[in-house]
């Protein structure tokens, strides 16, 4: 029997909305919740120390988000143009970044250089504070071009953290209603980035629906289940989990494009968080890699070039 399906009492069945909700933006407390989850996952975890570091980084991100200066809203004509041509309104590649993202970086670095970190990490944070603007923009371009490997592994988490804060802020400023569905459906309708993971909801009107989670702005957009989020194939889709696990995290893999993306089934564990649980299940990535499958979306806190040696 289905142990995860609750039996609903009469009158408690929620009627589905007319349309499936297609987008939800990150909440204001995203980074706090992420930090809590990193802290929950870290004890006894083989990557525990790194998860602790990321918990501190997420705290710093929350602080940076709360203290982020207000920005001028994007130009209405530009938004209309994006909408007309089916482009993401806050596209990472076509839109000029407001240098304010570096304010977020400064806030994060200041907090991190005071935190209790391994010496190498603290040194990197301190070193980044004096890196010149052009070099910072260059590293940001590397990350946003969809190739996190272009940024040195030491600097990647800090730069990525600041960019996340900036894009989360921009998205919430533009507001959920401004965004529309895009083709292809596998990129974020807010910023055009690839998803880091997918989440299968467990409750309410969204029960069982799959939402892809943006690796940059943490927006979640709906995509039909049992369909490759990378090439949209519906045949040859398989699910891999660690043998003996409860199946809360599965890699949805596609025979057509030979990639996979992890899905978090909240029905098995509703405390999971897209970014944190993705990193905490690195063993699944390593086994998928060994099986010859490539990840279709990045996790910006995981440098693809140094996976086998050091995280």
């Amino acid at each position: 029997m289905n142990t995860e399906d609750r039996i609903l009492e009469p009158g408690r069945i929620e009627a589905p909305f007319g349309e499936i909700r297609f987008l939800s933006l990150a909440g204001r407390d995203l980074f706090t919740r992420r930090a809590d989850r990193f802290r929950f996952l870290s004890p006894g975890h083989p990557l525990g120390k790194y998860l602790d570091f990321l918990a501190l980084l997420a705290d710093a991100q929350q602080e940076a988000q709360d203290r982020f200066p207000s920005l001028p809203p994007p130009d209405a004509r530009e938004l209309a143009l994006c909408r007309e041509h089916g482009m993401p309104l806050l596209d990472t590649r076509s839109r000029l970044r407001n240098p304010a993202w570096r304010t977020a970086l400064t806030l994060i670095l200041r907090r991190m250089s005071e935190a209790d970190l391994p010496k190498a990490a603290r040194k990197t944070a301190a070193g980044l504070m004096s890196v010149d603007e052009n070099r910072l923009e260059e590293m940001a371009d590397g990350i946003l071009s969809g190739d996190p490997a272009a940024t040195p592994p030491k600097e990647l988490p800090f730069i990525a953290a600041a960019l996340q804060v900036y894009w989360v802020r921009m998205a919430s400023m533009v507001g959920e209603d401004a965004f529309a569905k895009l083709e292809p459906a596998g990129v974020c309708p807010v910023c055009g980035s690839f998803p880091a993971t997918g989440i299968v909801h467990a409750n309410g009107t969204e029960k069982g629906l799959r939402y892809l989670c943006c690796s940059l702005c943490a927006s979640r957009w709906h995509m039909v289940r049992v369909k490759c989020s990378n090439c949209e194939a519906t045949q040859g889709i398989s699910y891999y989990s660690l043998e003996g696990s409860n199946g809360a995290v599965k890699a949805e893999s596609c025979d057509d494009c030979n990639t996979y993306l992890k899905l978090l089934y909240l029905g098995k564990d509703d405390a999971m968080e897209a970014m944190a649980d993705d990193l905490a299940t690195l063993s699944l990535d390593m086994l998928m890699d060994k099986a010859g499958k490539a990840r279709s979306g990045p996790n910006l806190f995981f440098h693809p070039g140094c996976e086998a040696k050091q995280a």
Partner: protein
Amino acid sequence: MLGFSSVDALAEVREFKLARSSETRNTCPYCSVSCGLIMHSLGDRAKNAEPAIFHIEGDPDHPVNRGTLCPKGAGLVDFIHSESRLKYPEYRAPGSNEWKRISWDEAFTRVARLMKDDRDKNFVAKNTAGVTVNRWLTTGFLAASASSNESGYITQKAIRSLGILAFDNQARV
């Protein structure tokens, strides 16, 4: 590089193996509402292993049921693994209380034979006024409602061309 080691993670991964499963869309066989399903099965079809269905949920993306299932649909996984599930044709002779397994060939031949005999005996080509009607009123046909448009079309063509008027698609066959 930031001072974090992944030696433990590498050691851990050696202890694990991958388990493969699939999710397959289907339609609930019970009634004419035709709710969408997602069936979860273990096993790898390519390796001649018998796929074993271990979980069935309502398809959340399906426009008809949006992931919901009625109590019968929610119990489908037990229906699949039921010991008394009908898997082959069986015949119970008139007056007997015993079911006997027969082959598909025997079943088809017997059904066709009985249909033909009845049709030959009772077919009405013309009514009393001499108008051509081509009716066969002594046999009726009940088809399943969860079939596809295509099989519905073929059933309609086959049955109507025999002259059968009593024809319905019913939910619980």
